[in-house]
C-alpha cells in the first residue's frame, strides 16, 4: 500500500544519503533555500516567495517590508501586546505569551479578523465609491451564524477615534508613495468620504488591508500575515515585563466595581497591585 503523503506546492526536499529523515536540500517553490537564497534574498522577499510562490518585484518586497515595520509593534497599550505582557509578568512560557497575543490580535476589533473583513470589502467594492459608502454606513457580517462575535463597527475604521491618528496617516502616505496606483492610492484619495460613511476615522487595519490588496494577497493570507507580523512587539514587551515583574505592572486594583456584591459592607477593597 502506498504511504500517505503531505501534498505541497511550497516545499520540496532531497534527503541526505545516510538519513531519509534529514533534508540535504530544501527548495521553496523551486529555489534552493540554503544553497541559493541564503545571503541573496531579504526577509521580505522570502516572505513574499513563501506566500505567493513567486519572486517579488522590488516595489512588492519594499511594500511588504514597510508593512512589517509599521505593524511590528502596536505598543504596550494594544490589546494583543497587553495579553502577551500578562503572560510575561506571571512568568509564563514564551510560547504562551505569543499565543496570548494572537488571541486578541485575531479579533474583529483592531485585529487580524478585521483585516480579513476589509480584504473582503476590497474584493466586493473594488473602486466603487457608492458601494463602499453603502457597505461602511451599514456594515453587516457576511455570515449571520459564526463563532466570531457580531461586528460592532465598520471594519478598517477606528470606532473610538476622534480623527485619523497620525501614525495611521503617516503609514498610509508612506505606503502610497511605494505603490501610487491601486488600493492604497484610492484610499488616500477617498479617505474622508469613506470615514464619513463609516462614521469613524480610518484605522491601521484599513491601511494594511489596502496594502495587502495591492500586493495581491488573498483574504486568508492577509489575516495570517497580520497575525504574524504584529508578534515582535508582543515578544519584546512580554520579555520586558517579565524582567520588571508584576509589582510594576497595572493590576487595576481600584478599577473594578462589583455591581451585585452580596456582602459589600463587610469587605475591604483589594489594594492596588495586589493579585
Amino acid at each position, binding site marked *: 500500500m502506498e*504511504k500517505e503523503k503531505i501534498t505541497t*506546492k511550497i516545499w520540496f526536499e532531497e534527503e541526505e544519503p545516510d538519513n531519509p529523515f534529514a533534508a540535504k536540500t530544501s527548495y521553496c517553490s523551486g529555489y534552493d533555500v540554503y544553497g541559493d537564497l541564503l545571503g541573496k534574498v531579504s526577509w521580505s522577499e522570502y516572505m513574499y516567495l513563501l506566500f505567493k510562490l513567486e519572486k517579488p518585484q522590488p516595489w512588492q518586497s519594499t511594500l511588504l517590508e514597510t508593512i512589517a515595520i509599521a505593524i511590528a509593534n502596536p505598543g504596550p497599550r494594544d490589546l494583543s501586546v497587553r495579553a502577551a505582557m500578562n503572560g510575561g509578568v506571571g512568568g509564563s512560557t514564551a510560547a*504562551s505569551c505569543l499565543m496570548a497575543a494572537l488571541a486578541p490580535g485575531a479579533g474583529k476589533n483592531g485585529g487580524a479578523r478585521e483585516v480579513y473583513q476589509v480584504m473582503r470589502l476590497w474584493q466586493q467594492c473594488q473602486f466603487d465609491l457608492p458601494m463602499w459608502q453603502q457597505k461602511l454606513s451599514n456594515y453587516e457580517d457576511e455570515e449571520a451564524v459564526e463563532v466570531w462575535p457580531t461586528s460592532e463597527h465598520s471594519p478598517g475604521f477606528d470606532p473610538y477615534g476622534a480623527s485619523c491618528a497620525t501614525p495611521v496617516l503617516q503609514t498610509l502616505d508612506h505606503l502610497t508613495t511605494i505603490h501610487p496606483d491601486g488600493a492604497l492610492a484610492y484610499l488616500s484619495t477617498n479617505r474622508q468620504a469613506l470615514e464619513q460613511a463609516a462614521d469613524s476615522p480610518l484605522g491601521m487595519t484599513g491601511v494594511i488591508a489596502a496594502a495587502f490588496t495591492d500586493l495581491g494577497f488573498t483574504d486568508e493570507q492577509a489575516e495570517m500575515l497580520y497575525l504574524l507580523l504584529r508578534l515582535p512587539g508582543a515578544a519584546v514587551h512580554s520579555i520586558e515585563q517579565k524582567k520588571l515583574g508584576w509589582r510594576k505592572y497595572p493590576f487595576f486594583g481600584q478599577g473594578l466595581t462589583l455591581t451585585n456584591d452580596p456582602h459589600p459592607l463587610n469587605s475591604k477593597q483589594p489594594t492596588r497591585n495586589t493579585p
Partner: protein
Amino acid sequence: MKGPSTLEHAEDNWQTDIGAAFVGERVVYRGKDLFTELNDISWFKHFIFGITNKMFADNEIKLMEKIWSLTMSYPDPRIWNNRIAALTASANSTGALAVSASTACSEANVYGTKAGFLAIDFIKRALIVVDNNKDLAKFVLDELKENRSIPGFGRPVANSDERIIPLFNEAKKLGLANGPHTKLTFEIEKILYESRYKLRMNAAGINSALIADLGFTTREQYYGIIIAFSSGILPCFIDAANHKEGTFFPLPCGRLNYKGQRNRNW
C-alpha cells in the same frame, strides 16, 4: 464621529456582575459567595452556572456530562486536534501549550466547536419552522441545496455515528430524551436519509438538540463545549510524552508529495 469618550468613561472603570476576588478574604462568583453558597455543587454544575447564570437540575447536569464524556473527545492521536497535543509532546514541549493549541484548533469547520455552533442554530431554526406550520422537508432540503451541508448531519471519514445510540440511551434514562428539538432532529434525519443525499445524523446533531431542549442559547452551547475536547487531548499528550521524543509518526523527506515549481535559480 463617536470619538474617544467611551474609552475615557471606561478608563479604570470596569463595572461587572460576573465576580471578583477579594484576596485574603472571599470570592464572589456571579453574585454568590463562592465559599458559602457554591461550596456544595459539582465542578460541572459550577462551570455551567458560570456560563449560563442558571443552576441546572442534577439530571440535566448529568446529561451534559454524558454528552461530554460519550461524544466530544476520544483519546485517538490521529484526530486532528488531539494530534496537535501528541506533536507538542513529541517535540518535548509543555502540556498547557498542547492543550491550549489543541483546544483552539477544536474550533474547526469539519468537527468541533464550529460544527456544534451551526448545529444548534439549525435545529432551533427548524423548530421555528415546524411551530409556524411550515413545510419541514422543504426547509431542510432548501438549506442543504443552499449550503451543500446540514449542520448536525453527515460526517467526514464515516457514514454513521457510533455516538448517537449510547448518548440517546443515557438521555432516556435521565428522562430528557423527549424534548421538541430532540424529537425533531430524528424527523430531520428521516427526511435526509430518505432523500437522495442519504445523510445520517451525527453527534453534533443529537448533542445540539438535547442541549437546546435544556434551554441553552446558541452561544451558551458554544461556550459550554469549548473545553470539552480536553478529555481526549490530554491523554494523547501524556501518551506521546511517555514515548521517545520525535517518534510520533515521523516523516522522511520522501513523504512530501511536491506539486510545485521545478528547480530554478534566484
